[in-house]
C-alpha cells in the first residue's frame, strides 16, 4: 500500500530540482494535498493562497503567462466546481500551462460527507475545450503522471483519492505511460473492464475472481479520460463485445459517459454498462462501507460483469 498523495508531494520535490520554473500553489490544504513537501524544500517557489481558490487559479494563470509551470492543489471539490469560471476563462480558453492537481476525489473521502465527496469533477473538466483530464490509479502511476503534466504543455486536471491504495505498477513498467493512451493491465477475451483511478485495483481483483468462474476479462487502466484513447475503446468493443466502465464518479459525464459517447458513434453493437455513482449525493461513513453501499468494489464489479454477460 502507498498513498498517491505522498507520491504527488515527492514527485513535486523531485521535479522542483530539475525544473526551476516549477511553482506550487495551495489553498490552506498543503498538509493534506502534500504540497507541503515542496513548500519545505522550495519555500520561495511555494505560494500559500489561503482559503481563496478562485484567486489561486487566476494567479496560477498569471504565473504561467510569465513562463512558470504552476501546480495548483486543493481538494477536488474546491479545485473544480468552486472555480469553474476561473478555470474556463483563465486556463482552458487561454490555453494556460497550469496544472490543477486535486486530491480527495470520489466518495472514499469518507466521513466528511457529500459536501466533500467530489463526483462531478471529471465531467466538469472534460467538457472544457483544451483541457486534459487525468485520474491516476496508484502511487507509482501518480508520480509518472505528475511528471508528464510538468513536461507537456497546456491546461491539465488530475484527481486522486484520499486513501492509501495498493501498488499496481512497478517503476520500470510505468515508464511507458503516455498521456492519452490507455494501459492494458490484463488481457482477456470475454469482456473489457475499463476503469480509472481508485477503481483500477478492484477491477484487477474482480478479474481474478471472474477468471476462476470461467470468465476471461480484460482490464484497461484509462488514466487519461480526455483526450480519450478512442482507438483502444473501439478495439476492446470489437474484440470482447462487452464493456463495463468503473469510476469513483457520477455515471453522468465521466469516464463511462465518455466511453458511451465513443461507442455510440464508432462501434459495432456492444453490451455496455457504466458503474459509478447513480446521479445522487452520497453520505458520511467509512470508505469501505460507502463503496459497498454505492456499488463500487470488487464484489460489485463481478456482479455487474456477470449480469451484463447474461443479457
Amino acid at each position, binding site marked *: 500500500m502507498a498513498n498517491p498523495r505522498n507520491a504527488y508531494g515527492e514527485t513535486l520535490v523531485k521535479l522542483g530540482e530539475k525544473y526551476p520554473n516549477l511553482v506550487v500553489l495551495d489553498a490552506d490544504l498543503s498538509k493534506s494535498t502534500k504540497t507541503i513537501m515542496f513548500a519545505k524544500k522550495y519555500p520561495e517557489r511555494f505560494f500559500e493562497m489561503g482559503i481563496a481558490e478562485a484567486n489561486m487559479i*487566476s494567479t496560477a494563470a*498569471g504565473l504561467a503567462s510569465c513562463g*512558470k509551470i504552476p501546480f495548483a492543489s486543493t481538494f477536488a471539490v474546491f479545485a473544480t466546481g468552486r472555480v469553474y469560471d*476561473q478555470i474556463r476563462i483563465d486556463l482552458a480558453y487561454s490555453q494556460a500551462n497550469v496544472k490543477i492537481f486535486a486530491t480527495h476525489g470520489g466518495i472514499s473521502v469518507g466521513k466528511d460527507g457529500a459536501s466533500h465527496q467530489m463526483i462531478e469533477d471529471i465531467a466538469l473538466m472534460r467538457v472544457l475545450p483544451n483541457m486534459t483530464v487525468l485520474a491516476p490509479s496508484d502511487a507509482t502511476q501518480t508520480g509518472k503522471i505528475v511528471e508528464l503534466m510538468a513536461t507537456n504543455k497546456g491546461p491539465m486536471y488530475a484527481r486522486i483519492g484520499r486513501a492509501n491504495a495498493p501498488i499496481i505498477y512497478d517503476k520500470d513498467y510505468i515508464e511507458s505511460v503516455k498521456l492519452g493512451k490507455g494501459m492494458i493491465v490484463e488481457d482477456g477475451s470475454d469482456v473489457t473492464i475499463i476503469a480509472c483511478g481508485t477503481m483500477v485495483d478492484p477491477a484487477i481483483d474482480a478479474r481474478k475472481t471472474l477468471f476462476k468462474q470461467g470468465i476471461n476479462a480484460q482490464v484497461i487502466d484509462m488514466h487519461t479520460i480526455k483526450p480519450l484513447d478512442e482507438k483502444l475503446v473501439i478495439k476492446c468493443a470489437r474484440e470482447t463485445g462487452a464493456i463495463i466502465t468503473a469510476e469513483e464518479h457520477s455515471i453522468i459525464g465521466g469516464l463511462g459517459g465518455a466511453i458511451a459517447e465513443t461507442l455510440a458513434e464508432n462501434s459495432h453493437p456492444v453490451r455496455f454498462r457504466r458503474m459509478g455513482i447513480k446521479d445522487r449525493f452520497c453520505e458520511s461513513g467509512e470508505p469501505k462501507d460507502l463503496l459497498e453501499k454505492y456499488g463500487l468494489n470488487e464484489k460489485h464489479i463481478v456482479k455487474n460483469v456477470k449480469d451484463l454477460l447474461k443479457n
Partner: protein
Amino acid sequence: MEHYDRKIIDRLDLMAVNIRKHVIEMLYRAKSGHPGGSLSAVDMIVALYFAHMNHNPKNPNDPDRDRFILSKGHAAPALYAVLAESGYFSVDELKNLREINCMLQGHPVCSYVPGIEASTGSLGHGLSFANGVALAGKLDEKTYNAYVMLGDGETDEGQVWEAAAAASHYKLDNLTAFIDRNFLQIDGNTEEVMRLESVRDRWSSFGWHVTEIDGHNMKQILGALNEADNHKRQPSVIILNTVKGKGVSFMENNVDFHGVPPNEMEYNMAMEELDLMQKKLEG
C-alpha cells in the same frame, strides 16, 4: 506634482481623442459593444502605452516588458485601439471588431491578439492574474511592473477581495491597480446597486497604497503612475475618478450607453463632437 512637458501632455490628449473616435467607429460598425466603460477608461490606457510602460509592439512577448491587464474586459475597444495605434497590429483590423473569422473578439483573448496579456470578460479575474505576473516578477528578480484596470462595479466580485488580500500579503509593490470609478454599472448607480463607498477606505484597509485622481487629467495620471511605481512594500491602487461615456456629451453619465452602441444619428453627433475636440487640441 512633477513637471511634465506640455508637449507630451498635448500629444497624449490628442491620442485619447483619436482613440475615442476609434471606439465610436468600432462600436458603430459592430452594432454591439460597450461605449460607456470604454470611453471612461481611455485616458489611463493611452498614458500607459504612449508615455509610461516599457513595451515593444515588435516583440510582444519580451520577458522584461511591463504588463497591462484589462480586467474589465468589456472596455476591449479602447485597448484594441491603443494596441493598434501602438503598432501591435494594423489599425485596419479595428474595423473587424466582433466579426466572424476575426481576431478582435467582443472581449479580449490572449491567445488570439498580440499584446493582450490575459483573456477577460468574466469580471473579477484580472487582479488575481496580475498578482501571478507580479509574483513571477519578484521570483525572477525582474524590474517589470504589472498594471491592471478594474471597473468600479467589478469590485462587487468577491474574487477581487481575495486578490486584494493576497497582493498586500505578498507585498507586491510591482503591481498597480486602477479603479475606473465612473459610478455606473448596468443596473444603475454603483451606490444603489451595491454600495462601494468608501472605495478609498476599503483598499486602504486591505493594506494598499491608495491615490485618487481625475482619471481624465493626463498630468495627474502620469504623476500617480510614477508615485505608484516608486512606492515600496505595498501594492498601489489608483482610484480614477472618471465619467462614463467621457468625450461624447450625450453619452456622459448616461447608463443607457453601458452596453448599447450608437445608432447612425448618435454616431454622427459623436464623431462631430470628437472632431471638434481634435481640431481644438491640434490648435
